[in-house]
């Protein structure tokens, strides 16, 4: 299980998270919803090692892993698909995947398999990765994380700026991965989509958990209240 | 919203030495001005070196610490100022002290003209670009016979003064340069230019968006800094009586400016003061050790960048929040 225990996080002097506790079990999909600046991305960055935190702030499978660097967390099986996709423009689609695969763990997700599942990626593999459409880039970005064979995949706003068709494609890939036991943490602006695709949810507001529960039983009125802090 | 006041940290209490400072300052100034009457020539020459190095270091510090313009070719201003003084005094047959304003003017013009190519560059490119320009001037002067080429020029007119007058005159010029540097720096930083520069230093895009004319701010700083350095350089070479290309356009000038600013603390007014004192202290103590002194200085600079990038002054202010020259601006309490 991946969890945070009452964790605080700072950007310099600015405190972004206030005693936030959250958990995700193997095979589970958890949604993080909340308005802009609530702290959802910060939570993901804290888990993956991009933002410093105290040692026992983040626990993975019983071990204290808080504050370790991103490559260390990747080796432990925690991968982040960053907001805005952030593919390497100097590398082709294939090279983006090769780079990640070489640094990641071995497992069922391989480059040939991804090429097979997404012929469009195979077609574009030698193009500079930023010369693709938004939806295609998002597929590559998720594949880049998948190819490291993580146990926990953290996804930051993967439907942002995508057409509805592209969003469906992206979630199709995600459900394929989930069906093989991958645990996913979804940060999603689209609340309906987030609740539909997850088992549990947390609503974050001003760096604190305002509401949490099972997605299927979510009361939309309560969620709206928690979301907007009313 | 009630949350705001807890988000902004309380501004540290700054020790304001209000009444004591002006009295002390005037006493110190009086002592310094009267110096030629109660000290030796050797002391005066050392102080001339000290004041001019301080002025040059302060000028460099203003550029790097406040303007974000790191210059590795600072020696170009020294050379231009020194040669302007010597050339104008020698060719016009004028009293060298009267030629100091000419040296200042030439330095200012040079700063203005050189800003055109230099400001097209930024960051590390700018830093080394200034060095390239300095090297070009160095090579040009080396190859220009009417400036004395490699052997340089003496300052003819100085021969007409007796030793006491000459030394005192150079000393007072240096004192003016040093105090002037301090006064200019303080005036800039307490005024609009300083506010503009600090806003650019903190966040350039935000400064631009707020209407700060970044270009004019940086250009003003460049010209002021260049003029100050040229003037200080001219006075410094009045002390040594001879200009040569190798000496005036030497990278050592930048090295001294960098060391004193780094050791003392970049981006503060007190820094170059502390740094210059440290520099000369170390030099007097370790004079016999030759190159080992320079090695030690270099390692000190490295250690400072690693351990205390804010220099010695930052170590002092960590303990006691002192603002000697009252240039820090506090956040208003809400």
């Amino acid at each position: 299980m991946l969890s945070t225990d009452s964790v605080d996080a700072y950007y310099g002097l600015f405190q972004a998270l206030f005693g936030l506790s959250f958990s995700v079990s193997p095979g589970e999909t958890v949604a993080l919803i909340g308005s802009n600046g609530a702290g959802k991305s910060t939570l993901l960055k804290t888990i993956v090692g991009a933002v410093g935190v105290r040692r026992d702030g983040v626990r993975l499978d019983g071990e204290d892993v808080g504050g370790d660097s991103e490559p260390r967390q990747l080796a432990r099986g925690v991968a982040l698909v960053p907001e805005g996709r952030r593919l390497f423009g100097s590398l082709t689609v294939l090279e983006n995947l090769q780079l990640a695969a070489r640094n990641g763990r071995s497992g069922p997700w391989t480059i040939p398999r991804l090429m097979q599942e997404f012929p469009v990626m195979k077609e574009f593999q030698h193009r500079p990765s930023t010369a693709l459409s938004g939806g295609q880039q998002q597929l590559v970005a998720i594949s880049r994380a998948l190819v490291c064979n993580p146990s926990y995949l953290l996804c930051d706003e993967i439907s942002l700026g995508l057409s509805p068709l592209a969003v469906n494609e992206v979630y199709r890939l995600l459900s394929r991965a989930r069906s093989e036991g991958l645990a996913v943490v979804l940060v999603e602006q689209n609340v309906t989509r987030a609740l539909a695709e997850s088992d549990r949810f947390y609503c974050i507001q001003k760096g604190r958990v305002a509401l949490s529960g099972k997605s299927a039983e979510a009361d939309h009125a309560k969620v709206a209240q928690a979301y907007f802090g009313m | 919203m009630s949350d705001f006041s807890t988000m902004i940290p309380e501004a540290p209490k700054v020790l304001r030495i209000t009444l004591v400072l002006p009295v002390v300052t005037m006493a110190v100034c009086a002592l310094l001005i009267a110096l030629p009457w109660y000290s030796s020539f050797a002391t005066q020459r050392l102080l001339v070196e000290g004041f001019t190095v301080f002025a040059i270091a302060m000028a460099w510090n203003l550029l790097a610490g406040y303007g974000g313009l790191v210059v590795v070719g600072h020696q170009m201003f020294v050379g231009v100022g020194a040669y302007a003084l010597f050339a104008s005094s020698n060719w016009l047959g004028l009293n060298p002290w009267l030629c100091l304003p000419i040296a200042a003017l030439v330095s200012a013009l040079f700063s203005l003209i050189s800003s055109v190519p230099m400001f097209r560059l930024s960051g590390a490119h700018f830093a080394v670009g200034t060095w390239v320009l300095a090297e070009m001037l160095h090579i040009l002067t080396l190859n220009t016979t009417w400036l004395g080429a490699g052997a340089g020029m003496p300052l003819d007119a100085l021969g007409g003064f007796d030793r006491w007058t000459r030394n005192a005159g150079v000393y007072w010029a240096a004192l003016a340069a040093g105090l002037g540097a301090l006064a200019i720096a303080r005036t800039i930083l307490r005024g609009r230019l300083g506010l503009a520069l600090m806003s650019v230093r903190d966040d350039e895009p935000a400064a631009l968006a707020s209407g700060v004319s970044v270009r004019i701010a940086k250009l003003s700083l460049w010209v002021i800094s260049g003029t100050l350095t040229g003037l200080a350089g001219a006075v410094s070479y009045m002390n040594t009586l001879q200009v040569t290309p190798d000496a005036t356009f030497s990278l050592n000038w930048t090295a001294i400016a960098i060391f004193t600013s780094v050791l003392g603390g970049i981006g503060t007014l007190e820094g170059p003061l502390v740094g210059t004192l440290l520099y000369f202290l170390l030099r007097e103590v370790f004079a016999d050790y030759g190159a080992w002194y320079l090695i030690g200085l270099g390692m000190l600079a490295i250690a400072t960048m690693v351990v205390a990038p804010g220099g010695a002054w930052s170590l002092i202010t960590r303990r006691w929040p002192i603002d000697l020259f009252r240039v820090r601006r506090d956040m208003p309490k809400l």
Partner: protein
Amino acid sequence: MQIAIETLVGGLMLGALYALFGLGLSLSLGVMRMINIAHGDLIVLGAYLCSVIMQLLGVGPFLSLILVVPLMFVIGMLLQSLLLNRVVGGGTLSPLLLTFGLSIVLQNVLQETFSADTRSLQAGDLALRGFHLGGVSIGLLPLLSTVVSVVIFAGTNWLINGSHLGRQARAVADDPATARLVGVDDRNFFALITGFILAVIAIAAVLYGIRTPFAPSSGPERLLYSFEAVVLGGLGNIWGTFIGGVIIGVAQLFGAKVSSGLGPFFGHLVFLATLLARPDGLFRRTQR
């Protein structure tokens, strides 16, 4: 006319050596976004190391490389891990000032150890041999330097484009934060790069030391030429650095023909003039 061609050819070959000086700087500026003011002094250090090994073991300069290249590689890794990694990513000021201090230390340590006298690496009459091609006289050593430089550039280019190491380098140059997310450990990686840079410097140092007498104070000039080659060619473009070096070499030799003391001056002039016209250099960052 023949003099013009000879000067051109000579300039091309000198430029190839300058390009080799600049390759390391191109990598550190491009991947680590850091300028190393001590770069030129490290070249001089390499030359002195060769000189020492040559004297100790009684071998020629090229044989001494067998020891000097690995030695410089290790020095590079240590330099990065212990010192430079502390200031990477901290803006322009910190690396510049730290490496400036390093430059002073290196120059003075070399001066204390070896005195301020110039020396060169003895390679028999290699420095004097040459041949004629179509009426143009070509020195053997400059030709060798050019070939070595082209080979190293081609090799580095292949590494950058075709290897895992190269992919990591390009990724870090694009986006260091995201590179960490895909497992690039930049601390170790940077150490590897600086090790590689110093190994290349070692080879360039030998070619330089045979050709030109050097002294502890020769460093800064080497840095300036390296820097001009890199910036002229355009950051992030390996072959750009090569072209940049060649341009500086040609400018210097033609300048020296005009007036013997003004060679480097013309190099500087061409550099500044080109930079004013194209502030980002002649070539853009290579995109595949």
